């Protein structure tokens, strides 16, 4: 290093800061290019440029590619790395870790061509480890005095920081693209000229086709319509409007897929702006509401169907009601005929029988017996007509319910039967009966028939009738046909009479049904049929339970209040 002052006197080696000093003091005699006084002018000029440039530069010279670089290049080598050993070092010795990357390019430059690399990853050993570094650099051949390539000038710029930012942006953009792609709603964008430049999978599915990026304009769908079916030209579609008129749009519309399938969508296109506020394109978010609309249609259709059914049912009920009214009026007609026309000949039979008897004067006991039979038959006939008439009136009942004190009614009935009760020596026990909504006359008839039956079908010395009441719980098992939302009471008429065989428990409620001959027990066979009719008119139920000789129990369930529509 004794020759250092000698090199410092060379003008081309002046300046250059730290590297300038290192190069001036370097022992060039130990290198293949020799000492600076032996260097050709081309090297001297090139080195002068390198040392005086503020741009990072590096120079290889000679077949051994002896190295020079400047202060601007210095930071790229880090703190504990190749610097300062790289000065005067052979290229291959300095860059073993990347020699395989740069050697092909170096060979190209030796052949006379320049190279250009932008943001190239070149991992370099510095700061104690191999670091990923990015470089934008150019290798340029430097010709010597013979016109041959004497060395290679490397002008470079480390872009690691810029590149790292770029990667961050790329990752962010990839994330954003993935986000857009995976959105369940259709999203697409167009550029300022209307060409599609981005779309997601949902958009592709909605369109039913793959649009051509940069070719398809305004919309990727096949055809567009307003909801009333009016076609929309693509250049007048919502996206074109948003772009042209620079405003947000909200439009419910139909788009047709290539196979003809229609999709019902709501489109929300809006213009996109750059940082200066200029329109750069537009973005459209389309929500597919086809299934929603179909469900809405289905719902409406089922509502209409329901309404239609209600109408039909109402018509049926009206018709049934009409028929019922007609049959009720026929029944009234029948009742009139029964009461008048049937009673007329009967009255005459009785009158003429009497007249016959008196005109005959004294007659044989046999003849008298026949006349008595005629009289008895007509009396029975008269009762039958009266009962049938009564029954027929119950078929078309007046639905006039009032609050009826059942307890008062039962005692009134017991009073009416006072004579018979005393004759038969009967005992009647009655629990406190409730007040319910009922037709008082019909309830009177019901209780009368039941008491009458209990007395009639009883041959004991001391007939007993027990009338009990139970209020039914809301969760009580109700007979079929009763309304579980109403409150009911159960009234039981239990006697100790002859009873009946349980197999006839239903039959006894049928009109004209008799279990006994009329010689055994008088009656028309209408009484219990009337009872059932009355209970049904009150929307209740009546059943009978017995074993022969064990007495009978009639169980009546009546609502405390009638159902209000």
């Amino acid at each position: 290093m004794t020759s250092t002052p000698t090199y410092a006197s060379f003008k081309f080696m002046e300046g250059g800061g730290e590297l300038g000093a290192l190069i001036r003091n370097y022992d060039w005699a130990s290198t293949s290019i020799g000492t600076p006084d032996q260097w050709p002018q081309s090297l001297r000029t090139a080195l002068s440029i390198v040392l005086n440039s503020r741009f990072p530069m590096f120079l290889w010279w000679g077949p051994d590619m002896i190295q020079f670089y400047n202060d601007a290049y210095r930071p790229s080598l880090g703190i504990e790395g190749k610097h300062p050993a790289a000065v005067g070092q052979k290229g291959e010795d300095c860059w073993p870790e990347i020699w395989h990357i740069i050697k092909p390019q170096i060979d190209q430059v030796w052949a006379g061509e320049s190279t250009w690399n932008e943001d190239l990853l070149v991992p370099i050993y510095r700061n104690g480890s191999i670091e990923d570094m990015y470089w934008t650099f150019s290798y340029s051949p430097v010709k010597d005095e013979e016109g041959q390539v004497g060395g290679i000038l490397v002008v470079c710029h480390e872009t690691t920081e810029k590149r790292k930012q770029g990667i961050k942006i790329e990752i962010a953009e990839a994330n954003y693209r993935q986000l857009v792609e995976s959105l369940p709603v259709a999203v697409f964008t167009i550029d300022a000229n209307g060409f599609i430049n981005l779309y997601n999978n949902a958009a592709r599915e909605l369109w039913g086709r793959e649009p051509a990026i940069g070719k398809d304009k305004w919309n990727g769908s096949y055809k567009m319509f307003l909801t009333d079916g009016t076609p929309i030209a693509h250049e007048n579609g919502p996206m074109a409007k948003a772009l042209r008129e620079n405003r947000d749009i909200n439009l419910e519309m139909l788009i047709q897929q290539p196979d003809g399938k229609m999709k019902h969508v709501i489109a929300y296109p809006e213009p996109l702006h750059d940082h200066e506020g200029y329109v750069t394109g537009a973005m459209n978010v389309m929500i597919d509401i086809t299934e929603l609309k179909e469900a809405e249609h289905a719902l409406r259709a089922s509502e209409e169907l329901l309404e239609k059914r209600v109408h039909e049912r109402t018509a049926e009920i009206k018709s049934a009601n009409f028929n019922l009214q007609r049959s009720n009026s026929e029944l009234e007609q029948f009742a009139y005929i029964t009461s008048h026309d049937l009673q007329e000949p009967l009255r005459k039979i009785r009158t003429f029988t009497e007249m016959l008897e008196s005109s005959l004067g004294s007659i044989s006991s046999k003849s008298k017996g026949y006349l008595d039979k005629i009289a008895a038959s007509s009396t029975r006939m008269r009762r039958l007509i009266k009962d049938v008439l009564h029954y027929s009136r119950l078929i078309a009942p007046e639905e006039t319910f009032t609050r009826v004190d059942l307890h008062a009614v039962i005692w009134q009935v017991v009073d009416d039967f006072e004579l018979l009760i005393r004759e038969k020596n009967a005992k009647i026990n009655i629990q406190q009966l409730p007040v319910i909504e009922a037709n008082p006359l019909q309830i009177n008839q019901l209780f009368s028939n039941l008491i009458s039956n209990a007395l009639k079908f009883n041959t004991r010395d001391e007939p007993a009738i027990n009338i009990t009441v139970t209020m039914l719980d809301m969760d009580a098992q109700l007979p079929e046909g009763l309304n579980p939302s109403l409150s009911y009471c159960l009234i039981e008429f239990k006697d100790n009479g002859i009873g009946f065989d349980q197999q006839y428990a239903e039959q006894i409620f049928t009109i004209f049904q008799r279990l006994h001959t009329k010689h055994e027990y008088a009656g028309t066979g209408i009484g219990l049929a009337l009872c059932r009719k009355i209970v049904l008119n009150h929307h209740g139920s009546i059943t009978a339970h017995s074993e022969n000789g064990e007495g009978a129990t009639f169980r009546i369930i009546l609502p405390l209040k009638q159902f209000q529509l």
Partner: protein
Amino acid sequence: MLNTPTILLIDDDIDDQEIFTSALAFIDNAISCTIAPNGYEGIMQLNDSDALPDLIFLDLNMPVMNGIQFLREVKAAHKAKDVPVIIFSTASDMKTIEEAKQLGAHDFITKPEKFSELVGLLHGLLFPATR
């Protein structure tokens, strides 16, 4: 009432005509009774005869002219308008009975089942003093 009252029975039922006249005969054979089968014939008879009957027995339900129509005609301006009219009919609804009374009917009797009862009713009407 006169000893031998004259009676007009207006009734379309032949059996009831017979029962009625038999009952009258049972009371007194001398009672004179003419019969018209409906209201119209009744009015014709009243128009044709010089003497008016003492009582008119009137059925309600008859063809051609029914009892109510007959009452309207006679009680309005007919020469027999003051002759007592007794409705003689099967049990009828209260409304019809009320209407007949409004139109001037004197009394109402339901055709009874027993002959003896009819005799008693008629006797009471014809000879009230002796009842």
